[in-house]
């Protein structure tokens, strides 16, 4: 039955939560306009009663009735009171609802109004902020202007100061000059006064002893038109020669500079020409190739026509072409630089390929070279090590001595030869000494023989044999001593010892001469002769024996012939 189900629904609704009761109640109230009388039926009066009493008590109203058991008699008063309370409650509720609605309206209008004002104020704020920044900006600009104007003012002041200083210095300079001129003027006035007073005027005079000639020796000429013209001519000549030299110098300088420019141009052209083969497909290059060929022609042409280079047109052409080439070279170098940087980053472009390839080839070549050099160095190091490492003693000594061996051998041989020579010399010397000794012995014997012979001769004529013999032997012994002393060295010593004995070439025969001396002079004083004899002996030993006797051994013989004689005599 739909109505009962509806009732159950209501119940279930009513048994729900308290706060939703009003709504749930309003719903059913709403519905209850259709369902009035359907809540309570005759069957469920008690239930409805209890339910209503519960509700009423929950609303806070006094209970409508007492639960009497099983009586369906309603307390009408209570019910009416209850109904009245309920209606009052309802009315109060409606009133509060109205108030609240009014309140809400008011509040919402307030909110609207506030929102409106807030937006308005925000806009105002924005506007004023913008104005503020604008004003700040203007202030800043004005401050800058003020600063610059202050600087200007300072500069102007400085300039004014400078100009004032200048004026002051000029003024002081003018004053100084004025004073100087005034002083001079005063001096002039004084001098003029003095001259007017002074009657005797000292005239100018020159007093020369005699005129001297001109410095260049020529005679001075009269001043005529010819000389004047000559002077003019000379003056112009000097000016012209000066201009000539200057022009020559400038021409030389120009020629040099032109040469330098041409060299530069040639170099640039050659550089660019070689590069053109590597770089491809660039528009300006194509255009330039033609121009380049033109330029090259021009280069050769201009070298031929060096004379015409003084022409302005050609000069301009040359400088322009150099500028063009230089610009091209510069752009090319810039391009290369960019390419190199790009290549470093590793991008692969067509135009890069060629340059990179060439770079790669270069790199490989260089690497190979480096490897070769390294190998070379290594082998060298090894060899050096071998050399410097300590080897066994034999080889070490050999090595250390190997350079010296040859020398040593040579030296040994030389030493040997020297030794042999020394021995030979020794032998020879010994021979010589022996010979000398033998010679002296022989001489001694010879002298003895001769003495004997002479004695015999003399004794034939003189009575003093015995004494003579004795003295002779004495003298002889003295001589022998001296001779032995002398003859111990080489025979040449004797030769040298008689420098003053010039007249008597007979050097080694003092014995003979003195002997001869003493023999004829014995006729005179005898005792004296002994001393004389001894003296003579002494003298003959040291110096010349010329002073003694005319009897000299005049034979100009040398040692060998004398010995021969001796030998022959023996």
């Amino acid at each position, binding site marked *: 039955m739909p109505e009962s189900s509806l009732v159950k629904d209501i119940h279930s609704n009513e048994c729900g939560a308290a706060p939703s009761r009003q709504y749930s109640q309003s719903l059913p109230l709403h519905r209850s306009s259709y369902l009035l009388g359907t809540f309570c039926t005759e069957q469920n009066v008690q239930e409805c009663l209890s339910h209503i009493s519960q509700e009423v008590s929950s609303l806070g109203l006094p209970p409508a009735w007492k639960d009497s058991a099983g009586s369906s008699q309603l307390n009408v008063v209570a019910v009416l009171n209850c109904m009245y309370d309920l209606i009052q409650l309802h009315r109060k509720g409606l009133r509060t609802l109205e108030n609240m609605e009014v309140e809400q309206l008011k509040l919402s209008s307030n909110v609207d109004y506030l929102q409106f004002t807030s937006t308005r104020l925000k806009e105002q704020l924005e506007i004023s902020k913008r104005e503020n920044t604008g004003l700040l900006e203007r202030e800043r600009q004005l401050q800058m202007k003020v600063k610059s104007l202050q600087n200007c003012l300072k500069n102007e002041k400085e300039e004014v100061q400078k*100009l004032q*200083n*200048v004026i*002051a*210095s*000029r003024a*002081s*300079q*003018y*004053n*100084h*000059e004025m004073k100087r001129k005034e002083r*001079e003027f005063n*001096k*002039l006035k004084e*001098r003029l006064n003095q*001259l007017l007073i*002074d009657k005797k*005027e*000292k*005239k*100018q*005079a*020159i*007093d*020369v*002893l*005699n*005129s*001297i*000639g*001109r*410095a*260049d020796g020529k005679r*001075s*000429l009269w*001043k005529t038109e010819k*000389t*004047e013209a000559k*002077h*003019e001519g*000379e*003056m*112009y000549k*000097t*000016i012209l020669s*000066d201009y000539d030299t*200057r022009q020559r110098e*400038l021409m030389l300088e120009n020629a040099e500079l032109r040469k330098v420019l041409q060299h530069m141009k040639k170099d640039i052209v050659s550089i660019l020409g070689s590069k053109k083969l590597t770089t491809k497909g660039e528009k300006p290059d194509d255009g330039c190739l033609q121009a380049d060929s033109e330029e090259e022609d021009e280069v050769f042409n201009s070298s031929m026509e060096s004379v015409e280079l003084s022409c302005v047109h050609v000069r301009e052409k040359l400088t322009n072409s150099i500028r063009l080439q230089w610009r091209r070279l510069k752009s090319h170098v810039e391009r290369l630089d960019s390419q190199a940087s790009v290549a470093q980053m590793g991008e692969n472009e067509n135009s890069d390929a060629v340059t990179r390839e060439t770079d790669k080839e270069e790199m490989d070549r260089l690497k190979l070279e480096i490897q070769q050099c390294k190998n070379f160095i290594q082998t060298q190091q090894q060899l050096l090590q071998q050399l410097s490492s300590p080897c066994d003693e034999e080889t070490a000594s050999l090595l250390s001595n190997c350079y010296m061996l040859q020398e040593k051998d040579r030296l040994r041989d030389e030493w040997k030869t020297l030794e042999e020579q020394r021995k030979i010399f020794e032998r020879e010397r010994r021979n010589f000494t022996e010979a000398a000794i033998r010679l002296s012995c022989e001489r001694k014997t010879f002298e003895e023989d001769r003495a004997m012979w002479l004695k015999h001769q003399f004794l034939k004529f003189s009575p003093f044999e015995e004494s003579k013999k004795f003295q002779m032997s004495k003298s002889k012994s003295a001589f022998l001593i001296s001779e032995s002393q002398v003859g111990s060295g080489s025979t040449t010593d004797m030769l040298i010892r008689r420098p003053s004995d010039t007249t008597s070439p007979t050097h080694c025969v003092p014995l003979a001469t003195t002997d001869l001396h003493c023999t004829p002079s014995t006729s005179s004083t005898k005792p004296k002769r002994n001393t004389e004899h001894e003296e003579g002996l002494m003298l003959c030993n040291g110096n010349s024996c010329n002073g003694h006797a005319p009897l000299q051994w005049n034979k100009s013989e040398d040692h060998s012939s004398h010995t021969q004689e001796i030998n022959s005599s023996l």
Partner: protein
Amino acid sequence: MNFSEVFKQSNQLCKVSPDGKYLATCVQYRLVVRDMSTLQILQLYTCLDQISHMEWSSDSLYILCAMYKRGLIQVWSLEQPDWHCKIDEGSIGLVSSRWSPDGRHILNTTEFHLRITVWSLCTKAVSYIKYPKACQKGLDFSRDGCYMALAERRDCKDYISVFVCDDWHLLRHFETETQDLAGLEWSPNGCVLAVWDSCLEYKVLLYSLDGRLLSTFSAYEWSLGVKSVTWSPSSQFLAIGSYDEKVRILNHITWKKIAQFEHLGTINNTKAVVYKEVERKTAVCSDDLSLHNITIGSTLFNTQSKYEICPLPVQIPVVKPDPDRANPKIGVSFMAFSSDSHYLATRNDNMASVVWVWDMQKMSLEAVLEQTSTVRCVQWDPRRPRLALCTANSKLYLWSPAGCVSVQVPSEGGFQVLSLNWHCSGDSLILLGKEQLCLCYMDTDQEDK
């Protein structure tokens, strides 16, 4: 380096003959001529009054002695000591006197620059030149001695007269575009005449030998202008020193400025070498302080000095000139080229103890020499690039591209070197003190630092 003994001289008049064989000095009113190599006195002449000016003739045969106060000139002959010549200017007075380049004429400038009298020693004739201008350098002879340029002023205008020195024939006479001509100078090749205005206007005019105006140069206006002008010996450059402490170099082809040298108070950022003279007082122990030593004086108070190379940046001592005085001590007043035109030595007047040497090939500063006191005289060796300078103490300073050296001049009484002159051969120097002179013979080797 050898030094000769000290001789007397007066008035800083000591000149070597142009052929380099003789040395003439003035002692009061006497003229002493010595042989250059032996320093023996060859001739002794006596003049009538104290000699104010002395000059050799160009052929080294005659000497001119001028006595300005008396207005007299006496000329002496070296070959004939008996020959005499006396020129009396009379009441007109004498302000300056000089030889003509041929050595046979004497040009006397009378007092107040009224006229120039040309006396001929050959003919005893006289000629007059009127209205010469009294200025810094109003008269100049060309180097070959052919022409003479004279500044004249008539009716408040400047003129230049060019005379032929042979017969004093007036070759050219033209007006110059100057306000107040201050000086003129022939170029060494004798073809260009540089004319500059007074310091109130910066203007340098270049005239050719025949009087045509070749060019005008003016660096700035209003401030004080040109202070000094000098030609390079090759006639290639004209150096103009001005009151703004700068030197401007003009070239002889375009007569435009090719370089500008500034004398800054702080030197940095150059490749130049800065030499600074450093003095060291010699330490004296108490034993030496005997009366004998003090009376001798020189050894006690002699200070050793040597050059030190200063690292950059260097501050140069600057003396600000008095702004109220005329001819202020500021600007480049001294400039000199070396004989090969390679170097230019300059001096800025407000840095008076500093000499600047510029390289003309690189157009940059080569060396800076900072002395302890004001530099008095700077001269280039006539043969090689060697600079000698003195600062009124007893030392001689030499600079060459190899280095710098300071030499003590040995003398007993303390010899203050006030000026110096090179001998024309470049082998010896003549040092002039207040009353003394001394010769310095150079070695043929190079100096070292």
